């Protein structure tokens, strides 16, 4: 089972931003999306995660197989690191969070309230959430924001571990993760031709 995107067009606020996208992501592979700010990477990832409808085209192998992580980590500042992670594990029907804590070097912080963490530590906790979902396809939007070099290495290691167990990862990022095996997909050539939306067309 692979994630397949065929002739996809996505819109932000009713305006098409990317169109004619086709790619596939097989198990054990990582795909890095590149493109300038505002080119529609976030919109594309939200569409693949099922948070907004596609304008055109098909997405197969997504839906219940996706673990999505965006700019906001969805952390509750009043809960401890363990409580935050346990909650997400339970939502996805899992119980074991020790691997995720260890993978992102959070063991020492386990009992701290999430509100007292630094931005980078919060980010690590947000990424550790991916490991407790048990979902095969990680969809990541700028996963390395506010991470230092050591944490980026931890993250790359986690992705590698995920790929080794038959998972896959689709991410939008600007920095070099040190993931040499990852394929790169540049969205810049797929920028949607400026046009009036079909709905507006009817009003002209």
């Amino acid at each position, binding site marked *: 089972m692979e994630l397949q995107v065929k002739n996809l067009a996505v819109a932000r606020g009713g305006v098409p931003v990317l169109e004619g996208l086709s790619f596939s992501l097989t198990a054990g592979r990582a795909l890095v999306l590149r493109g300038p700010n505002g080119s529609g990477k976030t919109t594309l990832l939200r569409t693949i995660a099922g948070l907004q409808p596609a304008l055109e085209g098909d997405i197969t192998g997504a839906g219940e197989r996706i673990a999505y992580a965006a700019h906001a980590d969805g952390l509750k500042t009043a809960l401890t690191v363990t409580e935050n992670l346990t909650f997400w594990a339970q939502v996805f029907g899992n119980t074991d969070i020790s691997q995720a804590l260890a993978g992102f070097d959070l063991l020492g912080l386990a009992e701290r309230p999430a509100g007292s963490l630094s931005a980078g530590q919060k980010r690590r906790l947000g990424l550790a959430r991916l490991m407790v979902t048990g979902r095969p396809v990680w969809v990541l939007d700028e996963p390395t924001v506010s991470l230092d070099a050591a944490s980026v290495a931890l993250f790359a290691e986690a992705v590698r571990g995920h790929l080794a167990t038959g998972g896959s990862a689709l991410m939008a990022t600007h920095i070099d993760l040190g993931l040499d095996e990852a394929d790169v997909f540049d969205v810049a050539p797929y920028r949607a031709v400026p*046009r009036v939306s079909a709905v507006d067309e009817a009003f*002209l």
Partner: protein
Amino acid sequence: MSIWEYANPVKFIRTTDRLMPYLAVGAVICLVSGLVWGFFFTPDDYRQGSTVKIIYLHVPAALMAINAWIMMLVASLVWIVRRHHVSALAARAAAPVGAVMTVIALATGAIWGQPMWGTWWVWDPRLTSFLILFLFYLGYIALWEAIEDDDTAADLTSILCLVGSVFAILSRYAVLFWNQGLHQGASLSLDKEEHVADVYSNPLYVSIAGFVLLFIALVFLRTQTEIRARRARALIARERLT
């Protein structure tokens, strides 16, 4: 030839433009003749005197206040099921008209109630229901105004309209239960017993016809305005592209 063709904004404007003069003239004729006939050529009631004649404003406005909401409900359902933009815009256009009709019904009721019941306002079930209906209109209009994206606003207000309709009916029964009320029975009904006399009801029918035509004309006009506003935004969007 299907009715859904009129869901095309351009076709809607063209068709309603053709109908508008007839509607407007019809509304004026019916309103003027109904109201003049009603106000000057009907006898005073033996108990209520000339105050009874306010029914020529009060009853049609109250009818339209309810019918406008029903029309919005139908238009909302059409939008949810078939996603025709004209339908959503028509619902939006009807709301303020319905709200004004509600205010007219409440105000004329108060003006009539002062000499008759000795008070401007009582918490009678009918009056209370209309006041609550007015609150529903306000909420609906406010939600439309608050949301920027047209389609999102149409979706949300449609669902609010559906849910609101159920609760409006519940409220109607709730206030009926809560207070039995002073208000007389229906002015017009198939049951001749509680019907007003023919000498009063004939001009009332004309006046109601006038209000219906006026309502249709206003909704057409306001829908056209909404369509043109939407069109202006589409044109600006296209202008930016080139």
